[in-house]
């Protein structure tokens, strides 16, 4: 009895699959995964990339977007180098994809790990993650200009900037800000994760942070933190009130506040190097479907993401530009690995 019950829907599914395959066959022989697909995360559990990857997994399962399973694996070692080297080591394997953050550029540049994004196949940009300059709500600074003036007027290294990791995006932004502080430096204090950074600011152990929206939003809503400016060219598109009187769109851009610094972080998907056009197309199609779900839109709004989506040549060109930008910023900050 039990067996029969278990088998019946399966054979039905199989039949349906065969029918579907027959129907689709004359049109095009599109590639599809033949075994479970590994989705690598070059970061630890609980962080921004991890949340997004697991969310994608959830959507794919919930809406049945792929016949094979997704297996989400964290390979966080060496600031993500472990994950990148893993996917680099299996070229032409169409069953492995990786979600990236800025460490796609910063890790090889800062540590000299033998890896470059050109070893992979760019699939799609899912979104750009924003950065916001935050201070404690009890601090006297109302605008980014106020704060930078205070840094300018203070003694060197008096102001402490908390951030995630070392020689990565948070510190790069800090260095970019230091161009505008009249030679005064921040004391950059690296922590292990974005959530911890936000709490260190609430506890006043640091003076400011450049947390991603999703990392600090809870503290903002509770009235513990104050956003000063958004490191984007234009304001956020999300106009729904987040706190009692402010929406994401009410945060001025840094440029507006006279602080000319822009930085956004790639949240994108890459596949192993050398996979075929058919295989790339499959993933582009899959991710497009994911991004069309209402769940995804809610997720984007919660994290105040910049919903820029790119694929194909356009995406490749963007990545090239971003690599150049990171190289220049890191060279200026003297973060590049020394090659002996």
């Amino acid at each position, binding site marked *: 009895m039990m067996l029969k019950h278990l088998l019946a829907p399966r054979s039905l599914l199989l039949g349906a699959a065969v029918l579907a395959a027959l129907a689709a066959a004359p049109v095009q022989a599109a590639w599809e995964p033949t075994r479970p697909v590994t989705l690598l995360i070059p970061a630890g559990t*609980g962080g921004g990339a991890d949340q997004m990857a697991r969310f994608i997994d959830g*959507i794919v399962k919930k809406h049945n977007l792929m016949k094979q399973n997704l297996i989400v694996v964290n390979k966080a070692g*060496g600031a993500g180098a472990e994950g990148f080297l893993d996917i680099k080591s299996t070229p032409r394997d169409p069953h492995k994809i990786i979600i990236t953050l800025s460490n796609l550029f910063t890790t090889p540049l800062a540590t000299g790990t033998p890896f470059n994004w050109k070893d992979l196949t760019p699939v799609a940009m899912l979104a750009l993650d924003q950065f916001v300059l935050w201070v404690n709500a009890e601090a006297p600074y109302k605008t980014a200009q106020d704060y930078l003036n205070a840094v300018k007027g203070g003694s060197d290294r008096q102001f402490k900037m908390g951030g995630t990791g070392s020689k990565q995006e948070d510190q790069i932004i800090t260095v970019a800000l230091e161009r505008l502080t009249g030679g005064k430096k921040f004391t950059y204090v690296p922590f*292990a994760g974005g959530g911890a950074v936000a709490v260190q600011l609430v506890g006043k152990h640091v003076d400011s942070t450049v947390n991603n929206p999703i990392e600090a939003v*809870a503290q903002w809503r*509770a009235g513990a933190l104050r956003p000063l400016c958004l490191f984007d060219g234009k304001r956020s598109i999300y106009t729904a009130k987040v706190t009692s009187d402010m929406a994401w769109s009410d945060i001025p851009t840094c440029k507006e506040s006279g602080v000319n610094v822009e930085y956004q972080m790639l949240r994108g998907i890459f596949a192993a190097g050398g996979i075929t056009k058919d295989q790339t197309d499959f993933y582009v199609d899959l991710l497009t479907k994911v991004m069309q779900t209402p769940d995804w839109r809610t997720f984007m709004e*919660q994290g105040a993401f910049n919903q820029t989506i790119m694929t194909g040549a356009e995406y490749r060109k963007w990545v090239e530009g971003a690599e150049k930008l990171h190289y220049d910023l890191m060279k200026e900050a003297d973060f590049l690995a020394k090659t002996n």
Partner: protein
Amino acid sequence: MGGFAVVLNPFNLLLMLIGILLGVIIGVLPGLGGANGVAILLPLTFTMPPTSAIIMLSCIYWGALFGGAITSILFNIPGEPWSVATTFDGHPMAKQGRADEALTAAFTSSFVGALVAVILITFLAPLVAKFALKFGPPEFFAVQFLTFASFIGMGRGSPFKTLASMCLGFALASVGLDTVTGQLRMTFGTAELLTGFKFLTAVIGLFGIGEILASMESGLAFAGTQAKLNMKAVLQTWKKLPQYWATSLRSCLIGCWMGITPGGATPASFMSYGLAKRFSKRGDNFGKGEIEGVIAPETAAHAAGTSALLPMITLGIPGSPTAAVLLGGLLIWGLQPGPLLFIEQKDFVWGLIASMYLGNIAGLVIVLTCVPLFAAILRVPFSAIAPAIMVICAVGAYTINNAMFDVWMMGMFGIIGYVFNKLSYPLPPLVLALVLGDMAESSFRQSMLMSQGDLSIFWANGLVGTIFGLGMILLFWPVIQWVISKALTAKPA
């Protein structure tokens, strides 16, 4: 009380039981930790209402907390990092045929720890959250210093051997990426060493494999077979437990404190074990199968593991790796962890808290009724079970990072563990340095960055000064004791 109504609907109760059972299994398998288990199951919960989802996932977490003790006691293999300290006395007890007693003590004290932590969360959440905010890098370093200090003098043998063992631990801990400078250290250009040495790989090898090697040498004899196989043992052990109330209370306090700040369950269990040994009348007997040596780390670990959820709910910072994954879950379910969760999502929060009470009670009942079953495993001839343990260890080491390299590492650590035993170098200092070395180094250097290299940051305010002072007192306790006894004997003369 509305929370209990939420939990008590049949669907949620069923999820709770499934969660506990899965959790116990996850806890038993070394390598497959609570964090991994919850992460794997997370996507499955997207179709559930958030409250049911958190009930199931948090029950997996309770289950894993309970389950971690089982293999530690039976086979000297810590299923989870926080049960390492449980092996110190739990396994010797099993060898003496007191596995049932050790298991009962472990489960019961886990439950007590969790209960105290939940009560704390229920009544003092907002207050306690404020306390957690006071912890910056210098405070964290002070706590880690206190943990080390409470552990000095652990080894019965030569203090130099203890020192050597600890230094090796520190050296191993420093391999991999340095968070403060972003540089790779001691990886020798190999990709495998990028991640550094995983604590669990080392522990599975040092304890589990090392133990098997030692047993093989002694002719596959394993004297754990006399354990009684009925529920009487549970009751008999329960009669003994109340006399250790002081240890329990101290461990609860340590656990709650470490969970909230967040220091984590692993340091909590070590600190609690160290202090129990220091303050117990039978301290010299620790490491030879003292029941207090099981009660202390288990109470603290479970109290810490439970109270780790408090900063997650109230502040949005995870107190443990598993809490970090749960935190991601909250966001995916459309809930925002943070100070407003208590106001905006009453049902969710109180449902979660109620599930902490009920989940732990259900967990205790389940694991206690299984005590005879677990103890019976020891009756299987060792020659049959040893290969099975080896396989479980290898699978565990592989699961941590999906890397074959870790399995070889585990073997290496097994040999190190065996050699250390032969030469009577103590293992606990090595393990402690490996788990805390990294964190202590980061917080020390973060503090130094903040103070521009001025050491006075460690007594800059009352909180950090007090913790640091306590650490100093503990560190020099043997000297202080000696001075006091000198002074006392000198007086009459």
